[in-house]
Each structure stands twice: as structure tokens, then as C-alpha cells.
């Protein structure tokens, strides 16, 4: 049997269905967590952001407008919350890779995937608005139109920022010898 779509689940949530909320939670927990991790490079922060995102969804059930796609709404909340964490920890500006290496916790140091770690460090070295677009495109698999809707930016701006972000990432990865 097909699972109900997001809009149906949101309607059921608004009527008090805990099961519907749990289904949405299970459906979006992983992408939200991964997006937050790629934005923040910290599992603890990614966990906190994921928790905050779903609590905000729950608190604002009545404000959800079904003419927009649910994932656009939740991904927007996830990115905004991630940026809030960056602001609070004064990490909004990109860190240079040397600084990132020095500030890694044990969880990052234990990572066996050097390629993944190299990409993550390159991501952390670009500005958060570029990083958001890369995360939406390459982590969450969104189209230009979807990114435009989520970030509330013209599609032209989305493309331009994505191309620039890629260029910066390539330079960063070349510099690190990862790419």
C-alpha cells in the first residue's frame, strides 16, 4: 500500500494524528540531519538542528500552506536553523581549512572517509549562502526551481550562486589535493 503524501500527512497532523507526524518525522529525519551536518560539520549540532526543525514544524502546523511543497518548507527551516547556529557560534564566515583541521572533534578525526572529509572541509571554507545552495543541490537533490522556492531567490540567482559555489569548491579541493 502506498504511504500517504506529505500534504495528506500534514492535514492529519493538524487534526491531532501522532502517527502522521511520526511518518513525516521518519521520512524527513535523515535528509534534514544530513543537510544540517553538511552545513555545520558537527553531529551534535546536526542533531540539535534536526530536533528544533521538527519541533518548529509541529508548533507551526497551522501555518503550513499546502500550496507549497512540504519539503520546501522543512528544508527552509532546516537551513535557517543551521544558519542560526552558525551565527550564534560566530561561524557564519567561512573558516580556512587550517582552522577547521584544528577545531575538529574526535568524531571528525575518527572519520575514515578522507574524500568525504575533504569535501566537508571545502564546504566549510565557502560562505554559508553558497554552502546552502550546494547542500540543496548535492545533498538533498533539489532542482533549480525547488532551490529557488526554498531560498526564495530568483532561479537566475540560484544558478549563478551554484556555479560560483562549484568554482570555489573546485579551487578549495585542488588546493587540498582532494579532487
Amino acid at each position, binding site marked *: 500500500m502506498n504511504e500517504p503524501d506529505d500534504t495528506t500527512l500534514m492535514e492529519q497532523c493538524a487534526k*491531532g494524528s501522532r502517527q502522521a507526524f511520526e511518518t513525516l518525522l521518519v521520512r524527513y*529525519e535523515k535528509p534534514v*540531519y544530513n543537510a544540517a551536518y553538511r552545513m555545520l560539520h558537527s553531529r551534535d549540532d546536526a542533531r540539535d538542528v534536526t530536533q528544533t526543525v521538527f519541533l518548529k514544524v509541529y508548533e507551526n502546523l497551522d501555518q503550513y500552506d499546502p500550496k507549497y511543497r512540504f519539503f520546501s518548507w522543512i528544508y527552509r527551516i532546516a537551513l535557517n536553523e543551521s544558519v542560526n547556529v552558525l551565527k550564534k557560534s560566530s561561524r557564519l564566515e567561512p573558516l580556512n581549512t587550517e582552522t577547521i583541521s584544528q577545531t575538529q572533534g574526535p568524531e571528525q578525526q575518527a572519520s575514515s572517509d578522507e574524500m568525504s572529509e575533504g569535501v566537508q572541509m571545502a564546504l566549510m571554507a565557502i560562505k554559508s549562502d553558497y554552502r546552502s545552495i550546494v547542500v540543496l543541490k548535492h545533498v538533498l537533490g533539489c532542482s533549480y526551481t525547488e532551490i529557488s522556492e526554498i531560498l526564495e531567490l530568483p532561479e537566475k540567482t540560484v544558478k549563478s550562486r551554484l556555479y560560483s559555489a562549484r568554482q570555489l*569548491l573546485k579551487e578549495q579541493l585542488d588546493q587540498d589535493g582532494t579532487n
Partner: protein
Amino acid sequence: MAIDEKYEELINADIDGELSSSERRELEAALDSSPEAVAYRVELLELNNVFHNIPELDPPPALVRNILDQVQLPAKRKFFKLPSPLAGLNPVAGGLAFAAGLVLAVVIYENDSRNVPQQDTVSMVGAMVASDQVNAPGQGNNLLLELDVLSGSVSLNLSENGQALEFDLNSNQAVEIEIDLEKAGLMVVGFAQDDRGDGSFIDTLELLGGTMRVVNQGKHHFVIFVRQTPDSKNHGKDIRIGISQDGQRVYEDRLGSIR
């Protein structure tokens, strides 16, 4: 390596799977004629491949349960946050003057009106409070908080309409504060948040049964106005306050209510 802007756009769109058939023909022509375009495409494909190979991370196993433990679905909630704090509100009786520009947020509670005279309920719901009047006058009790997760104070003072539980809180992370009013024979009659915090609303404010639940993240100054329930003599005098983070209780204490 300089590359024509049009080629750049076509190659990126190709990588992203957003190329129309006419653009594809245009791209193929570009790749036939421009070695720079070919090299740029190879670089982008390599970058795309790098992202394809990044493993997806699994969230902590307890995350879903932790989130579910923190939510109560709407049927059980009595929670009103006004999108525009001042819209549609009228100052109410009670002697609390309204000073424009000073109020950051006003939230109105619907009280359980059982056993409460109707006129009292009407007069007490929806207090508008200026920041210079949030500090209710009179003697009260004070609780200083110097926790790892939260600092600030909670105090209970007399106000013209009853009692005012004043919170001055500061926390980097989301911290949940539970105030058990029912066991102290108290009921909520209003809430006000002023402009002495960091400018944001407190994250969550809920009244579940006789327990007030507030989630604080950032710096906030707010007051919960309470008054005695008609059967308050049958209850204890202490207001129990519990503080939790990530579902774990980190602090508990009591404030003596004023009788």
C-alpha cells in the same frame, strides 16, 4: 581557464540534469568546438562524482523518540502565539498601561474557566504590558539560575492582578522549563514578553493541564501572570520548577507562592 558564460551555463545545466533538447544540441556543438568547454565539463563531472560518493549519515537512533517525546499534538494544546503581537488586541482592565513600542510580544491564554467567575476571566485575559511595568511591584521570592545550560533568574512578585512569575533567562541551547502551577493552586491569566531580551520570541509556550512549559533559547525576559484558583487552599504553597535539556532533567527547585 576562461570559458564562455553561455557554455558554463549549459555545462552546469547538463550536470544538473536540467538541459532541454535544444540546449543539448547547443552544448554538443560547444564541446566539439571548445577544448576549454570540454575541460570545464570534465572538472564539473569530477566534482559531481565526489558529491555522489559522499556517504549519507545516519541520525542518532534515539532522535525520533526524543522528538516525539517533546511534542503534544494540537488536540491537547492550549497555545496561542499571535503573528502580529499587537494586532487586534485591546488594552484590558487591570491597571496595566500600554506603552507603544515597548511590548515585544503578548500571548493570550484561554483559561479553564470552571469554577471561575465569568467577569474575572474576562478581565484577566490578554494583558498588555509595557516593558517598564513587567517588573511587578512588591515583595517576592527569587531563584537565581547559574546552570551550565541556563543562567538568569525566576522571581515571584505581587502584581495588581494577582502574582507575576518573572523570568530573565539566557541559554545558548533550547532549554525546557516546566512550572507546575496546579499543585500550587495557581492558574495562568496572562503572558507578556518585553524588549529586554535578544529580540526574538521564546521558542515554545504551552499550557498543558496545570503545567506551564516554556522552551527558551537565547536571551528572553517575560512574565507569566497567575492568580489563585478558587480551591487554592487545598493545594501546597510551592511552585515546582523543573529545567530539562534534550529530555533530561538538569535542575529542580521550588518557589514559595504568595498567599
